[in-house]
């Protein structure tokens, strides 16, 4: 399945991607900046995301909230930050496209004059509350921090989560915002996708009018990092949390997004833990009933990935039982590879999931978001069919080999999350980790 698009790069370096879809009288405006938490420095973690919040608080020529005019025009809108990129999107009725372009270009070009301490302080409080709501106050919410903290050295840009540390957020200054904006929020560091009920020539002219005059700026500095050293032993960690049931996490380094074995490990995760027929679900939840839930995922990002398996113990069952059962299932898979029925299933699922994601023009994961993802990480916005081919070309032997190479029992992080005050429920010899 291919998505027709036109790419045009403005003189200032901004990529504009246009896809026509006249099914519904709406247009998705989707703007990616190639900056995320991996561009942060230790001591200022969480900053890229806090910055994203400020982008909604007004710019020089519209020094008020960004939601008001857009919601009034019938738009839905949002933004998000992850380790590698920050995106902003609006889905607008066709007749509000110009409004969205006006606003996106105004904050790309003229954010700083509208910046105030009051806005900064307010959004810092909002973000601290976001952190409480989604991490501190959520069961197992801090486990992700413990995992990346253990997988990556303190100076590696994936060592911290995008939400950052509260002290770092409190230490951030308005000057940091200015420097960050000037470094990263530049047309040449961005990609704009417009998908929906538009005519390519017209909308390109309009976007050029709004974004063309903005200054190109300089290339942002490269992200410097040392690839993580290969794990040569099992590292056992322990985290106490306000939870009822103990949970076990396995994590391994794995390939980066679109690197060799990335798609292969996606399918390995599918066979291991997606749906009731998956090996881990069937064995741990359905047959032995020692786990209440199970998940596996290949989390691939721009400069590295990690593969994770998560299982929660049934009341009365132990993490040691889970560890053994997961180890057994993994060993069997590595030993025998997937069956042909499993191959059929995971490929059918991969193809269906791929098409499900392309049902919408905008939002998180719609066509415009995907065009930008391919453009930013591969320089090929039209990678759709080839992306699917990555999965179609995976063989049972490749899955077996990838699982053997990457999911080694002697080189992994194993984290036990246990109810407060019950450290005895963790796997033996686990070391407490300090995250909060």
């Amino acid at each position, binding site marked *: *399945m291919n998505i027709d698009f036109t790419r045009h790069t403005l003189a200032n370096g901004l990529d504009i991607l246009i896809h026509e879809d006249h*099914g*519904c*009288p*709406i247009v998705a405006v989707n703007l990616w900046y190639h900056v995320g938490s991996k561009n942060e420095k230790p001591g200022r973690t969480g900053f890229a995301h806090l910055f994203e919040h400020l982008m909604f608080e007004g710019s020089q*020529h*519209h020094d008020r*909230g960004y*939601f*008001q*005019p857009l*919601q*009034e025009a*019938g*738009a839905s809108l949002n933004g998000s930050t992850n380790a590698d990129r920050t995106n902003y999107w609006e889905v607008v*009725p*066709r*007749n*509000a496209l110009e409004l969205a372009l*006006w606003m996106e*270009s105004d904050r790309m070009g*003229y954010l700083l004059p509208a910046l105030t301490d009051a806005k900064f302080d*307010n959004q810092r409080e*909002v*973000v*601290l*509350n976001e952190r*409480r*709501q*989604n991490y501190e*106050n959520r*069961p197992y919410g801090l486990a992700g921090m413990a995992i990346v903290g253990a997988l990556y050295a303190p100076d590696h840009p994936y060592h911290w989560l995008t939400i950052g540390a509260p002290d770092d957020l409190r230490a951030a200054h308005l000057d940091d915002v200015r420097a960050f904006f000037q470094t990263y929020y530049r047309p040449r560091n961005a990609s704009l996708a417009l998908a929906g009920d538009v005519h390519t020539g017209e909308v390109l002219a309009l976007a050029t009018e709004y974004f063309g*005059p903005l200054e190109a700026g300089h290339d942002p500095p490269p992200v410097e990092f040392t690839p993580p050293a290969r794990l040569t032993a099992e590292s056992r960690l322990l985290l106490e949390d*306000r*939870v*009822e049931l103990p949970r076990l996490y396995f994590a391994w380094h794995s390939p980066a997004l679109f690197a060799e074995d990335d798609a292969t490990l996606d399918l390995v995760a599918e066979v291991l833990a997606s749906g*009731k*027929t998956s090996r881990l679900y*069937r064995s741990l939840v*359905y047959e032995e*009933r020692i786990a*209440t839930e199970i998940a596996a995922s290949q989390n691939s990002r721009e400069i590295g990935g990690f593969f994770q398996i998560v299982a929660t113990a*049934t*009341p009365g069952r132990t993490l040691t039982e889970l560890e053994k059962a997961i180890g057994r299932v993994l060993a069997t898979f590595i030993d025998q590879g997937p069956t042909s*029925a499993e191959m*059929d*299933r*995971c490929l*059918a*699922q*991969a*193809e*269906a*999931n791929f*098409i*499900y994601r*392309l*049902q*919408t*023009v905008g939002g998180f994961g719609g066509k415009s978001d995907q065009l930008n993802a391919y453009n930013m990480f591969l320089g090929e916005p039209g990678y759709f069919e080839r992306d699917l081919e990555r999965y179609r070309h995976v063989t049972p032997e490749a899955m077996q080999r990838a699982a053997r190479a990457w999911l080694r029992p002697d080189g992994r992080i194993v984290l036990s999350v246990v109810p407060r005050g019950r450290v005895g429920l963790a796997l033996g010899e686990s070391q407490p980790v300090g995250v909060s």
Partner: protein
Amino acid sequence: MAVDRSRLPALGPDPGFRFPHIQRGALANGMRVWTVEHHAVPLVSFLVLLPAGSAADPADRPGLAAMTSDMLDEGCGDLNAIELHEALGRIGAHLDSEIGSDATILTLTSLSRYAERGVAMLADMFIRPRLDQRDFDRVRELRLNRLVQMRDLGPALADRAFAQLLYPSHPYGHLPIGNEGSLRVMLLREVATFHREQFMPSRMTVIAAGDAPHTELAALVERAFGGWAHAPGAVPSADGPVDRPPQAPANRLALLHRSGAAQSELRIGHVAASRSTPDYHALLVLNAVLGGQFVSRINMNLREDKGYTYGVRTSFDFRRGPGPFALSASVGSEVTVEAILEALSEIRAIRGDRPVTRAELETGRAALTRGYPRNFETAEQISRGAAQLALYGLADDYFTTFVPKVLAIDEAAVTRAAEMHIDPARLLTVIVGDREKIGPSLPRLGLGTVTEVAPA
């Protein structure tokens, strides 16, 4: 041409929108079959609607409806649970099951080339579920474990306490999952009875939407569901009225203690309107202004001005019977009382000294109407929209009259709806938070004695 940055550009002419056509038909067994053509992507989605949800639970068996719907994909016809899911996996189908107070909805989406196999399996789940004892025991255990895990989930605890206190001894007084006591004594026989008595083709609607002609979609449903006859002796149950529970005499405050909670989870509200209220559109506008969208009064105050929360929303939950009006938010523990006071004052003001203004009215109406076509982009969205028509018996022209009806709402209608459906003197406030941190400040709320809610 230079860009004019002195003002925001005006909107172009309204693009208009043609709503997808719903072709309505029925099978000989009484099941309604609606079809919608949607050719954007090679997918077909089948939605099965049963107008019975957790409100149909017997009074002593909360959780029975949810348990029954959970058992549907645990094997059917000749296939056990694993075999069924293997077959679904081979066609890359997405099966989604959802239960609310008024309805049970299963949706199966697949590539169009697999539509026939998909709908056949979906039909088998409804018509011939295996209902094996072993599966029942396992599913019940998983649900009991989920209840255990809910003890750590602030939002779930707040939702449950809120429902219990608003709707004592009422079909809306529990969450669909039920409670531990009920699940422990539940019998497979009760599930089978619930299935026999409630799952009747004559009460149900199937909505097929996707990349195929109407006739083909209808034929697929007919082949899959056409042979389903009423269970012998079963009488189609009428959808009886859902009573309005007695209104509380005054404001109430309830606290569920959660030691060390980093935030307080809030629910504030009371029993309000049902889906059939003539004030439906006025209440949508009212809610948009008060707390239904980002730029609403309460979110702008609590988040954008005070920084008390990551976000706050209000909603009217329109059900067959009178559903709740509720504000939901997680707020910093230290500012719990301030946040509640601000929220209460906004709720009072919109039907008191600060009624909706012209500008707010226009923003609210515009957001609801101009954004309306967005809700009809995918086959599944269209099916879900159509399911609301089927569930609540809304007019065939409901979609096309929505925009004019919202635009006809004026300030007076919003204020009247606020006066009629919001009562600031009878609000229930539920806090799930750390008593040590917030307890001493609670008297400042002036909401009387605090009822302590047991953590269940």
